[in-house]
Every structure is written in C-alpha cells, then in structure tokens.
C-alpha cells in the first residue's frame, strides 16, 4: 500500500468534500434549533473543494490495484475530469446561492441540514463518476448520486408533485441502473475485469462475442443515457423536472447531466478508442458501432426535445425538454470522435451551465412571487419586471444559440467540429433543430413582451442579492459571446483524458 498517500493526495477534493459533509452533518445536529449557519458551511466546503480542484496540478491514477500491474487505478485524475469538476463546483455553488432565495427551500428550514447533506452526496457521487475508471466504482458512484437525487427530488414535500417526482425518478432510475449493472456483469463475464483500461486492452484483440458486447453496451448506455436524459431514456426528465424543487431541477439539468456526459465520454474514450491520431481523431476499435448509435440517438434526442418543447406551457417542463434537446447537441460533440468534438463539448457545457442556470434562476425568482411557472403568467412581464425579462431573453437567445451570446460560441464550436469531421448532413439537421428551438424560446419572449400586461401580471423586483446573481450569469453570457478566448483556452487545456498510451 505504498501508493496510498499518493492516492490520497490525488483525491484531495473528494476528501475535502467528505470532511465537509461530516462537518455539515455534525453542525446540523449541534445547532438543530437555529440552522442558519449550515448553508454557509456548505458554501465554504464547496469553495474549498473548488480551490483544491483548481490547484491540484497533479494528474494520475489513484488506488492502483494489485491485479492491474500496479499501474492502473480505478480513479483517474486528469484535466478533463478537473474541468467537469469545476463545472460541478460552480453549479453547486450557484445552487446553494439559489437555495438562499428559493421560497421552496426556505419553507423547509428545519430540514436544511439534510438538504445540503444530500447535495453533498450528489457532489461526491458526481466527482467519483467523473474520475472513475472502474465499472463497479462507476456504478456505485452513480447510485450515490442517484439516491441523493431521488430524495432531493421529493425533498420539500410541499406539493403532491414533489413526492410523485421522487417516486418516478426512483423507479425509473433504479431500473436503468439495474440494466446498467446487468450490462456491467456481462462485460465482466466477457473480459474478466471491470477496469476500463483492461477492458480496452482485451477488446483490442479480436473476439467473437460481439453480440454479447453490443447487448452489454446497450444496457450500460441505458444507465448513462438516463442520466444525460437522451432519447429513449429521457422519459423521467420532464416529469421529474416539473415536480422537483426548482433548485434541484436546475441542478439535475446541469450538474448531473455534466457528470453523465463526463462518464459517457470517459467510458467511450477509454474503453472503445484504440488510439487517437495526431490530429486528435479517435479511432474506434471495431467491436461496436458507437458512432451510428450516438448519431441516431443524438438526432432523435434533439428533435424530440425541441419538437415536444414547442407545446409546453410550464416553463420548468419546457426547459426540461430544452435540456433534452441540448443533450442531443452535446452528443454530437461525442459523435465526431475527435478532440475537436471534445473541445466543443467542454465549451458548450460551460456555456450551458451559465445560460441554463440563468434561465432557471429567472423562472425561480418569478415563481417565488407568482407561485407559478406557467407561461401565461409571464404575460407582459417585460414591462413590469424589465431586468428579469431582459435577462431571460438573453439566456433564451443564448440557449437558442444566436450571437452575440455565449450560446452561439458553444454551437459554433460544435458545428466546427462537425464540419471538420465532414458530417455536414448531421450539422444541417442540428441547425434546423436550432431553428425549431428558436420557436419555443421566442414564445416565452413573446409572452413577456408582445402580450400586454394583465391585472394578473405581478411586478417582480429582485433584491440586491438576486440582482447580483442574475448579473453574475448574464455578464459572462454576453462577454463570452464576444470574447471567448479565455473559455476556449481553458477548455483547450482540459482535453487530457488519462489513457494508457
């Protein structure tokens, strides 16, 4: 166990998180009458974690296993993982800030300790998902995240729909992870290992069990696909997004999706890519046609997401379908199987974080006041609440991918990757989807500005804290739309996925 210390150094952020979790729980128990301090502990823990992620220059395998030549671990720390961890940290940070002003969360002050503890559970699960290179670890961390999120989805218990969301999420999630586990067991049977690198090495030798492998892959993809809510594993998404507290919805739409994507990318890149050439194109080993599968899935996902979103009247639900569509776009980044595509995903995800959080924040602030997420209640909001409405417009425009917002940059890099891979037809389908998506984003804009304010229209005036929060999200969306150099540079430096070669 000579490398234990080394391993522990590598997983410092996770250790910090765990400690923070424990501290949180203890404080929650100690100060059970006045829990005002708990959120700040949560906040501090995350900030600390973020610092550790940012200033963790090392990369390498933690927890090398004796049976794996002592070289490969089950936990890889690399820049790619750190990028996603930063995204998780930022979104967790934001979600805690959101929770400060969310009415739903403020109504359950007595259970606030559990709330943050569960969020910590999710964060830990996601951190492990991002870095795990062993299928069992992947499965367990996925479950850690899922179990926390099941509870969180129904956490507030304020309305029927919370409980219902939790139940649906639970059942759907359990089945999906069950399928995944079964797929993992098949892979284990085929290769004798659950470590992605070992599996990769074995798959590179020709083998006759391709159908079995395909079955296993499909089953595993069902588990991952449900996390990133790609069609046809998306069914839980709208129901749960609508039912869950809005902070959790936001969190699920970005953080857990980020973890899912990180997992998918690492899983495919590590397991099924033979080598990547000098131009960064990944050569798939021929055992399974991931490319066609993902193209089909991504086109289905974005199309279904966009078309269904057209008819939604509940904004949370609409944004749920929009996030399904975005999953489709993001899958395109994988589909090209190149570092260019990966770059696009990284950029897109950061942008997506900003704009989706922004949109949900506005929805939350409005819903705090009106108690409704119905699109009809947005009539004339542009006149009564200019700041929120303008910000929402900017976020929606960004989600639609129009310049000069960051959303355009995200899409641009995606299409650059697609064109580079000469996948013009797919690019055109995706672009046409963008046009469709515009339709429902603009519908919200229409309600806010083109419809007259009614007597129902309330004036929502955010306080200073919320205004700042909005600005914190709006400004980067606009700035990155015009000057995206730092973003791209950062993403560019985060492309390393630890591999054997």
């Amino acid at each position, binding site marked *: 166990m000579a490398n234990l210390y080394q391993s522990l150094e590598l997983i410092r952020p996770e250790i910090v998180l765990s400690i923070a979790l424990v501290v949180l729980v203890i404080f929650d128990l100690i100060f059970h009458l006045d829990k005002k301090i708990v959120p700040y502990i949560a906040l501090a823990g995350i900030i600390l974690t973020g610092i550790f992620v940012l200033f963790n220059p090392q990369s390498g395998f933690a927890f090398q296993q004796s049976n794996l030549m002592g070289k490969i671990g089950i936990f890889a720390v690399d820049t790619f993982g750190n990028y996603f961890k930063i995204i998780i940290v930022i979104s967790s940070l934001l979600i805690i800030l959101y929770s400060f002003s969310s009415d739903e969360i403020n109504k359950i002050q007595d259970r606030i300790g559990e709330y943050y503890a569960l969020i910590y559970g999710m964060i830990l699960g996601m951190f492990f998902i991002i870095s795990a290179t062993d299928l069992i670890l992947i499965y*367990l961390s996925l479950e850690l995240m899922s179990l926390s999120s*099941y509870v969180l989805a129904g956490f507030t218990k304020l309305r029927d729909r919370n409980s*219902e969301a939790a*139940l649906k999420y639970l059942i759907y999630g359990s089945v999906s992870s069950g399928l995944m586990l*079964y797929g993992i*067991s098949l892979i284990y049977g085929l290769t*004798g290992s659950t470590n992605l690198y070992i599996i990769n090495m074995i798959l590179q030798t020709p083998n006759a069990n391709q159908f079995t492998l395909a079955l296993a892959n499909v089953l595993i993809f069902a588990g991952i696909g449900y996390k990133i809510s790609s069609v046809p594993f998306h069914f839980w998404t709208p129901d749960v997004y609508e039912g869950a507290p809005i902070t959790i919805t936001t969190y699920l739409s970005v953080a857990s999706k980020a973890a899912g994507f990180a997992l998918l990318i690492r899983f495919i890149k590590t397991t099924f890519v033979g080598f990547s050439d000098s131009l960064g194109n990944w050569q798939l080993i021929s055992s399974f046609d991931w490319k066609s599968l993902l193209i089909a899935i991504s086109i289905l996902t974005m199309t279904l997401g966009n078309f269904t979103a057209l008819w939604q009247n509940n904004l949370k639900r609409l944004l749920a379908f929009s996030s399904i569509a975005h999953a489709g776009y993001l899958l395109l980044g994988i589909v090209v199987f190149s570092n260019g595509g990966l770059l696009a995903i990284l950029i897109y995800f950061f942008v997506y974080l900003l704009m989706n959080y922004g949109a949900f924040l506005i929805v939350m602030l409005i819903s705090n006041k009106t108690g409704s997420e119905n699109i009809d209640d947005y009539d004339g909001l542009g006149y009564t609440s200019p700041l929120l409405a303008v910000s929402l417009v900017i976020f929606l425009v960004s989600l639609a991918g129009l310049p000069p917002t960051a959303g355009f940059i995200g899409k641009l890099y995606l299409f650059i990757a697609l064109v580079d891979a000469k996948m013009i037809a797919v690019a055109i389908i995706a672009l046409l989807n963008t046009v469709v998506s515009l339709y429902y984003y603009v519908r919200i804009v229409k309600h806010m500005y083109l419809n007259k304010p009614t007597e129902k229209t309330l004036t929502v005036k955010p306080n200073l804290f919320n205004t700042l929060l909005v600005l914190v999200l709006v400004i980067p969306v606009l700035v990155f739309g015009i000057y995206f150099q730092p973003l791209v540079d950062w993403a560019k430096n985060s492309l390393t996925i630890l591999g054997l070669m």
Partner: protein
Amino acid sequence: MFQVTLQHFLVLSAILFSLGVYGIVTRKNAVMVLMGIELILNAANINFVAFAKFGNFGFGGQMYALFVIVLAAAEAAIALAIVLNIYKTFTNVNIDEIDNLKE
C-alpha cells in the same frame, strides 16, 4: 445438457432478471415494484459470482456482489422512505394512479 455449466447459472440469472423486469412493469403496488428491482440486482449478482468462479477471475466478482448487496439495502431504505412519503401524500401506493405530472 444436465451437466451444470456456467451457462446454466447465466440462464437462471437471465430468467430472474426478466422476471424482475416483468414485475416492475406490471405490478401496481409500489412496494412490489421494488421487489422487482431486487430481483434484477440478484440476477446481476449471480452473474458476477458465476463469472468469477468459472472464469477464475479471482475474488472481484464476489466483491462486486457484496457491494451490490450493500447498495441494495441502501436503495431499499431510500425507496421505502419515498414510498411511505407517497402513501402519506396520496393515501395509496398504486403507481398507475400517481400520474399528475404528465403532458
């Protein structure tokens, strides 16, 4: 064919898995749906242990089964809690009646 081989265990696991899925899909009572999930996990566990033994993969498979059992316990706890919560809210646990969230 009666000679028990790896395949026998695997087929057993496959059928168990399918029964689990069947249970999940058909039962109305939420608790019984949870039972279906347990069957799936058991099926996977049989696989792990069987593969480990017949493939001589070491103790990894048993280890995994162990983990999965622990996980199943945790999951069952959470699930039961949620079901209880549902019962408090809806006064029944029939899944097909819990469909307020839909198009």
